[in-house]
């Protein structure tokens, strides 16, 4: 019984140390933030029912100078590289805007992009956000644009969704998916080159990523990364793609983990039987 008592003492102190340097220390270093808010309540926007035919006209009139909508055959007036040099980052194709972005976010975004993206601190009188504010549009017109985007939505793969949502600024070197934006222009625009995301899934916890993507300022006040306004589903697709690239041996690791543990348990039982047999002679 003395051995059990010793074991309890050893386990107790080990557990205290573990608790202290892991869960406790991390709770102190990374204060808890509110969970992701996928309804974007802070923007206070609601979306009415719009007319998608009118929406298409509005998009043709207002958006296609910079944006393409390839799924319905609309090409942008500007080439990718010209746009990248002019704006710092390639403007997004809008084919899947209705799928990627939350409608409440998108309507607030059209009225004031910098505000919706929480990057107002980067812009002032001398430096303006590349996309103009459409605050002169009526609620009905905005709803119509959204209705148009919604009407052309098709499901996309995790990777394609990632490329549209994150891949215009970030590289994913380990999947050979590189940002189309000019690196120098992008660095000048963002203040720093956005990090490669290849193994970001290993560098940040799920919880961090889900609150960070939803609202970067919450975890990293003052960052120039914009709030992208992804819906919960789109964000999960992005994270799932990041996991596929950054932790591609996860399934193998877990599968092998069970086998290794099972082997060691059997090994231990056999060792125990042998030990009992041998010590019977000497005790």
């Amino acid at each position, binding site marked *: 019984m*003395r*051995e059990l008592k010793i074991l309890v003492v050893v386990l107790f102190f080990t557990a205290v140390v573990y608790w202290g340097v892991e869960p406790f220390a991390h709770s*102190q270093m990374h204060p808890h933030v509110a969970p992701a808010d996928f309804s974007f309540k802070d923007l206070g926007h609601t979306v009415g029912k719009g007319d998608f035919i009118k929406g298409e006209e509005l998009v043709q009139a207002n958006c296609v100078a910079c944006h393409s909508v390839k799924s319905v055959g609309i090409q942008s007036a500007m080439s990718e590289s010209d746009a990248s040099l002019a704006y710092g980052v390639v403007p997004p194709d809008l084919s899947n805007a209705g799928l990627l972005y939350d409608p409440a976010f998108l309507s607030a975004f059209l009225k004031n992009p910098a505000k919706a993206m929480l990057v107002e601190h980067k812009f002032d009188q001398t430096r303006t956000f590349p996309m103009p504010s459409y605050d002169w549009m009526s609620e009905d017109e905005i709803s119509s644009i959204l209705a148009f985007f919604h009407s052309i939505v098709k499901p996309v793969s995790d990777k394609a969704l990632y490329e549209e949502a994150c891949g215009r600024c970030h590289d994913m070197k380990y999947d050979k998916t590189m940002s189309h934006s000019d690196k120098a222009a992008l660095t000048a625009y963002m203040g720093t080159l956005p990090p490669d995301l290849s*193994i970001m899934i290993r560098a940040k916890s799920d919880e961090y990523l889900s609150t960070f993507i939803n609202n970067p300022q919450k975890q990293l006040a003052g960052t120039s990364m914009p709030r992208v306004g992804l819906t919960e589903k789109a964000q999960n697709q992005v994270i799932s793609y990041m996991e596929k690239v950054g932790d591609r041996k996860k399934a193998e690791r877990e599968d092998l983990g069970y086998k290794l543990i099972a082997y060691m348990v059997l090994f*231990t039982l056999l*060792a125990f039987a042998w030990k009992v047999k041998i010590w019977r002679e000497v005790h």
Partner: protein
Amino acid sequence: MAEIKKATGLMDWLDQRLAVNGFIKVMMSEYWIPKNINFLWAMGVVLMSLFMILIVSGIFLLMYYKPDIKLAFDSVNYTIMQEVEYGWLWRHMHGVAASVIFLVIYIHMFTGIYYGSYKKGREMIWLTGMALFGIFSAEAFSGYMLPWGQMSYWAAQVITNLFGGIPFIGEALVIWIRGDFLVADATLTRFFMLHVLLLPLVILLLIAVHFYALRFPHVNNQDSEEFDFDKEAKKYLEGRKKESKVVPFWPVFLSKDFFVVGIALTVFFYLVCFHYDFAMDPINFEPANNMKTPAHIYPEWYFLWSYEVLRGFFFDIGGIAAMDIGLAAFGFANVIFMLLPFLDRNTMHTAPAHKRPMFFVWFWLLLIDMIVLTVYGKLPPTGANAWVGFGATIVFLVLFVLLPIITKIEAKNEGAES
């Protein structure tokens, strides 16, 4: 030359040439270990197993790792983790074993302190053991640099800067250690050499001496009882196995050790596959960036207590800069354990701590204080945290100042009793 006869079998053939039978007797079947021990005595073999795991996994990592600041990060995180078959397994095993081995070292070390296995003839065991601890620390630190992630870089930056506090030569020494004015490619390649060649060689040598040092004073037992090993061995060989106080290393002692190793490795593989963040800090999965320090930097958990001693003094005292006092305290903390056999002034009496009332209190205070230091060593050193760290540092220093005094009193009391 010995007379060589026609061999009766392979063992006999080998025996005539290498004296394998005698060797096996000396090393295994007639190497005597006390019977009165508990599972804490298996930690040596657990350490050996983990060290073997480190060597084997390290060999496979070495096949694909590239010691160049431009290539290191991707060679680890892409080639090894994603391309090489089982590369992730070797890396996880290597990282987790490096962390877990320190837990076992600490258990091993505190077992030695508790049962008084560091004195009265066992000083060399203790000294080589503490030397191993020191070299293992260097091995862990140099290995941590190799993936060239954010923690690798900033740990290297901070720890090499420590030497800058040494009077007169500090600044030049830092540059000498780094091989550059900053932590750079030259630093990486020399630490790579240390990690894969020089330090492992020293470790192997020290392990051999550590084992050899056990031979004469013999392994201690859980009552610190002293007895005649030859007499007890004779009883055992005569068949009075139950009566004898000793058992042979093989198979009796090892059969128990294998069982303990089995349990340890079961937990180990769970950690390797499902719970590795404690040993492979997520921050190190971001590539090194010499223009951006992570929000929180801290050493691996096993360095935290001495790191906290280092930063415990956060204010100047009597005109001496806080940094210098901290450095002196850090130096103290790193050599003081080495001196334990000489600080214990009750030199001629070995007993477990529960039979030494004052030492017993000292032991548990030390353990608790080191845990406090460890926990606060990771927390941001601000506000109340800084004061707790300062207090625990003072307690640590005072405990070692007190040790010679209380053991002296203990020796005196025992002298009076007898």
